[in-house]
């Protein structure tokens, strides 16, 4: 691996690149799939990819290949340089990052995943399938997946950046549906993702079955204005959409309403958000980002006040800020692990103190970071009345504005969970429009 990267760096410069960025990644693992309650397939997956970005002055050209013999690697470098020469300048280009020291990260590699045998992977997912049936015979697993893999990456550039990292991850999901006397419920899904083999597959099956049952006998409600309690998954969706708005690329491009709002109160005091690329065991935790800048911990929103944006070198230079280890490419920015601080309430207290509202576990719709519009269907949504979860509702739509939601949060739970790349509490928002027929 190293020799290919060294060769690409050298050869691109010989061909006329003034700067070069090279990354090489490789992964392998197993995938077990389920269709209609049965193991449908077991796969061995492997992939490798060389990516070269050649820069000629301020012109950028990128090429990639998964064919790694000498001839193809050479061609890949040539294509990157030729493309850079054929394109036009990016006048804002300010250069590749310089080498900086990388942090020590914890909990990103688990030998048990790296050495997992396919038989064990099958057994793990079967545990979930069995648990679904033990929870309820009415529930069918329509689709399921367990994927376990290890990966390694080398990233280097012509300014002396050289990083090597490796990691493991396991992810699993079940899509379930419950059926009873001819009535089909709506999809339910439960997923789990981790850097180590500590996923509770029994719990995954049980939750997937419970959620399906909760989506079976739905009752209609009248439209109302009330509290909206976002379960972990929906809260994660909200905060990950918000992250688009505090990403440096959206800011300088003009597609973020948070532009020019640093130092302002954009959310209630109970909200503190940290972008933490070095979070132990975090899904997006790594030593360095996609341009080779070190990952770090960045306080973005403190007690509701917008403190900074997240950046790569390119966007940081345009905005006159510092890079924060959030490059998703040389030009684009993405959050790492989005960590929302826990609050003062237990989830039980949040429900108990709700007069009328919805407890929302799945949201099928959009929450736009650009115009803030929130609009979509409430799925696995329970009506909460006088402090009690009553029954799951049907055909409800949630309508509002993300930025108004942030100012109407009335409670944040102590309990937190990892959902995708967010570590989030459950939150309650007031004065939300719930629309039905």
């Amino acid at each position, binding site marked *: 691996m190293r020799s290919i990267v060294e060769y690409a760096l050298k050869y691109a410069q010989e061909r006329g690149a003034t700067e070069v960025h090279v990354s090489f990644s490789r992964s392998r693992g197993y995938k077990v799939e389920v269709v209609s309650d049965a193991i449908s397939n077991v796969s061995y997956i492997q992939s490798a990819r060389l990516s070269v970005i050649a820069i000629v002055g301020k012109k950028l050209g*990128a090429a990639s290949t998964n064919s790694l013999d000498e001839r193809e690697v050479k061609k890949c470098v040539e294509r990157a340089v030729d493309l850079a020469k054929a394109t036009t300048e990016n006048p804002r280009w300010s250069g590749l990052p310089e080498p900086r020291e990388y942090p020590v990260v914890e909990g990103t590699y688990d030998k048990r995943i790296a050495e997992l045998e396919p038989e064990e992977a099958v057994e793990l997912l079967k545990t979930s399938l069995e648990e679904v049936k033990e929870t309820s015979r009415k529930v069918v697993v329509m689709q399921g997946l367990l994927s376990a893999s290890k990966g390694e990456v080398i990233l280097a550039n012509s300014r002396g950046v050289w990083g090597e990292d490796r990691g493991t991850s396991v992810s699993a999901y079940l899509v379930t549906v419950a059926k009873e006397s001819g009535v089909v419920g709506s999809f339910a899904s439960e997923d789990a993702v981790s850097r180590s083999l500590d996923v509770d597959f029994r719990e995954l099956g049980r939750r997937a079955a419970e959620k399906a049952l909760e989506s079976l006998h739905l009752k209609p409600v009248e439209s109302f204005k009330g509290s909206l309690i976002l379960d972990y998954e929906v809260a994660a969706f909200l905060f990950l959409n918000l992250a688009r708005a505090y990403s440096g690329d959206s800011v300088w491009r003009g597609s973020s309403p948070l532009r020019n709002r640093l130092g302002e109160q954009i959310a209630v005091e109970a909200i503190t958000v940290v972008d933490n690329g070095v979070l132990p065991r975090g899904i997006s935790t790594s030593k360095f980002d996609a341009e080779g800048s070190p990952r770090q911990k960045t306080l973005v929103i403190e007690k509701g006040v917008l403190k900074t944006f997240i950046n790569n070198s390119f966007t940081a230079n345009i905005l006159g800020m510092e890079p924060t280890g959030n490059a998703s490419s040389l030009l684009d920015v993405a959050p790492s692990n989005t960590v929302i601080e826990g609050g003062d309430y237990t989830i039980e207290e949040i429900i108990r103190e709700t007069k009328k509202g919805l407890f929302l576990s799945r949201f099928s719709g959009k929450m736009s970071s650009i115009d803030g519009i929130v609009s979509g269907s409430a799925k696995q949504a329970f009506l909460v009345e006088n402090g009690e979860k009553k029954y799951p509702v049907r055909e409800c739509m949630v309508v509002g504005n993300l930025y108004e939601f942030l100012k109407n949060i009335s409670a944040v739970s102590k309990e937190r969970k990892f959902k995708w790349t967010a570590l989030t509490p459950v939150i309650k928002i007031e004065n939300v429009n719930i629309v039905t027929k």
Partner: protein
Amino acid sequence: MSEVVDVLNKVLESTSSLGYEYADLRYEYREGFSIEVRKGVVEASQVGIRRGVGIRVLADGAWGFASAESLELEELRNALERAFKLAKTSAKAREKRVELAEVKVYRDRVFSRVKENPVDVPIEEKVGLALEVDRRITSYGDVIKDVSVMYLDGSFRKVFVSSEGAEIVVEGVRTYLRVYATAGEAGKLSPAYEAIGGVKGFEIYRGEEPFQLAKTVAERAIGLLKASLPKGGLSTVVLDNKLLALIVHEAFGHCAEADLVISGDILTGKIGQKVASELVTIVDDPEPPNANGWTPYDDEGVRARKVFIVEKGILKEYMQSRETAAVLGMEPTGNARAQDYSFVPIVRMRNTYMMPGDWDPEEIIRETREGFYLKGAFGGQADANGDFMFSVQEAWRIESGEIKEPYRGVTVSGNAIEVLKSVDAVGKDFKIGFPGTCGKGQMAPVDGGGPHIRCKIIVGGRR
């Protein structure tokens, strides 16, 4: 390509003593090019190559799969042996045996027909096109805050060889142009989006279409700046071709995919029953000319055919793979598709549309007393019980047959069967060519279309 066919056949020959029931090998070579222009600047341009072989083995009544990123005989043989072992592992965890419906075995070679191969067009010309589209949008002035024009093209070659003797080569090119713009005024932002493309040559970018796209996107983003959310609730709506394409795909299409039918969804056991208004006929078509979901043969080597899902309101057929067809005792339809060589094929739609009716689209609006005219989509989702939702780009209020003020931020939802039963007018206009990428654990290029229609749907808005 015959060299590739030979290598793949050699792999089969040299492993036939393993004793599997069936095996297939799918070689794929893809070359792609893309440029992104944002406000007058070519920000990123890239080329990529990906090739590999996916090997699927059926042994002891179960599937195993492995992929390799090489054409070396030895490596492919190892991959096949690995897939064979994984099939045995999988068999131990399975009760029912996998059966495959019989199909005719083909040896064929197919090319997508285009006038101008995009691979032969100089990069400078593609850059020029993207810059010009971008310029047309930024020429609307400072009100345009952000623009992204993405041009993509590429070529693909797929070779399918099976232990039953199939040898199929499919080659083609793809092009795609995606335009985003965000307008802004007084702290308010408004996004808009459109795309064209498919298994098409560069000729579609020679005319006015790319610039028409730029105009639509820019004017929509600006036009909706002052628009607000409408009043929500069950409403009479007229859907444009693109929204209808999405509703047909999301709401109905998925529920007619045989794997979901077997698991049990809203269309299970409903063949022959009325599931829509008699004005409704829905087809999944493998080969409308140059459509994004062009699939002459599927990834199991099955000759793809048209599937009449709904004919005059009656549910007729499901979309099938060889495996689902065997389970249901029906015929394979050529709907088994894989994202690429590293995935196993699953039941997918191709190009799904509603057939036109006899209303003049303008007449539909003229004959609507109160409701909304809904245009363009940002995407949507469907559910096993037929419930669906999608985000609409533009909503125009209709009053006494006239189009009034616009609204934005509208999401519509409903139940596929209820909504399609409520269809009371189907336009005689017909448009196909709304390229999209459908996600179902794997991504697949799809297309869709149809006429203008009128139906009843829940519009998400203010109380």
